[in-house]
């Protein structure tokens, strides 16, 4: 029988009361399961996905200014992740000399070259870091695919990002291009914690 992960919602949990206030409680299944669960849940509940703000949208002199290399610390039990890309652009109607651009992104575990690199075209205008209120400015937050789990893609299409699956936290190097911010959610956990 598989032991499925059950991450905990600490926002609705009572963190201060004791599991039991009996002096010498019997080793009941409920008590033991509760004691075990508090620790395992603390270990495998994914960490907060940090929202990083930055400008990798504005090219001043080199295309490398569109690049952003970063890393994510991933809690145990992760399998796949999704990125949220903050996009900022000037509409092509305002700046017709611009180009329709595409984001590229990868995680190290999924592969950093060829078809392993996710390519995410956008219908937005020319990428540029702008404050709200500028004429022709547009922006949004785009989440990458939540369904395509192809670990050996034949094309660099949008798909789930592979993460290291481990019983300890791991550091996952990542890359994204032409964005004004990025965060990564651990979207899929192992089906059976006993496999860790």
């Amino acid at each position: 029988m598989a032991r499925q992960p059950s991450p905990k919602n600490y926002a609705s949990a009572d963190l201060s009361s004791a599991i039991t206030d009996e002096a010498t409680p019997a080793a009941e299944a409920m008590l033991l399961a509760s004691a075990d669960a508090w620790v395992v849940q603390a270990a495998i509940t994914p960490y907060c996905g940090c929202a990083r703000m930055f400008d990798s949208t504005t090219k001043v002199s080199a295309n490398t200014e569109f690049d952003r290399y970063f890393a994510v610390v991933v809690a145990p039990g992760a399998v796949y992740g999704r990125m949220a890309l903050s996009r900022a652009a000037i509409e092509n109607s305002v700046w017709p000399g611009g180009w329709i651009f595409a984001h590229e992104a990868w995680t190290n575990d999924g592969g950093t070259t060829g078809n392993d690199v996710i390519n995410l075209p956008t219908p937005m205008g020319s990428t540029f870091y702008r404050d709200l209120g500028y004429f022709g400015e547009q922006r949004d937050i785009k989440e990458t695919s939540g369904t395509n789990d192809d670990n050996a893609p034949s094309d660099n299409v949008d798909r789930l990002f592979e993460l290291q699956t481990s019983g300890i936290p791991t550091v996952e190097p990542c890359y994204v291009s032409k964005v004004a911010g990025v965060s990564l959610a651990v979207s899929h956990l192992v089906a059976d914690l006993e496999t860790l």
Partner: protein
Amino acid sequence: MTVDTPIKVQISKASALKLPEMAQEPLKTALENLNYLIRYHRPPLVDDCPMRSFGLTRGSTYVLPITPSADGLRYTFETRWIVLSAATQSVTVSVDSSDAYAGGATVWSNIFSQATTSAGAGTLTTQTKADQIIPADAEVLRYQISAPASGARDDHHFLVYPTPAATAAGRMAGSGAIPFDDGGLAHADEWPIHTEFINRCKVTAVAVLIDRWQRALSMLDEELTAGYTGPASDGWNEMPPVRCYLPFQGPEVNLEVFAIAQVTGGTTAVLRVGQVGGDSIELAATGQITGDTLTVKTKGTGAMTHADLRVQRYRTTGQTTYVNAISAYYIPGA
């Protein structure tokens, strides 16, 4: 008495929890997992991409507010940069901390200083400096990154996460976490299942969770008047929103928000940090660390639960607003 720290989280079989035997297990496994958690719970303390840090032919300095563990833990620092135009250039990263940020008058204590030779022109360099202690009372870190001898440098990412030493037997830590030694459970007389053993699983798990704040929002630019001014017009300017994932949490979550910003003149009430379509807080640009609590209403479900965050900054006519750093932390249960 032995303190065993598992090298990975131990998972008791579901059947062992439903039909426990008259034995040490499965409680011993749960208690040993506390030692695991104390050592391996590693949410990032720092997770910052400098705002716009490309083509730098000079050194640069960043300061960022932090709230480290009350236990004075060791942390591992990973710093990522690229040297663009010349191969094998040495870059030195120095990191200091202070318990009282006072702008240019801050008294700093060095944590480490390490030079690393870049991997080659245009190739990402990742410097890892493991197991450096951040004092429990530190409220700010300073990164100083040297210029390469030749060519330019792009700063990409600063990551800091806890990597405590192996758990040792002893009294309760400042965080409230209590490690487990097997002296009781392994005793020849088989001590009775004790209330404290049961409750310690929750008390210590919660103590570790609450002690290691998790980075929820980051915005970082250089210090003092080298900070971010943006393509701002007078009045309020809103920067592109970002998504903070708060997996499985809600419906409301409190984020502890800190900022360092300054103005050349005019009002100092220049920073708003808030949720898109929700509440916001205002922080003053005094040149000091300012902070407040932001309550967000989470959206989405399960692992994809999130809050979209936005930052607005104000510029008084004829003046300049500099944003040096904004950081927000999530504390489980807050």
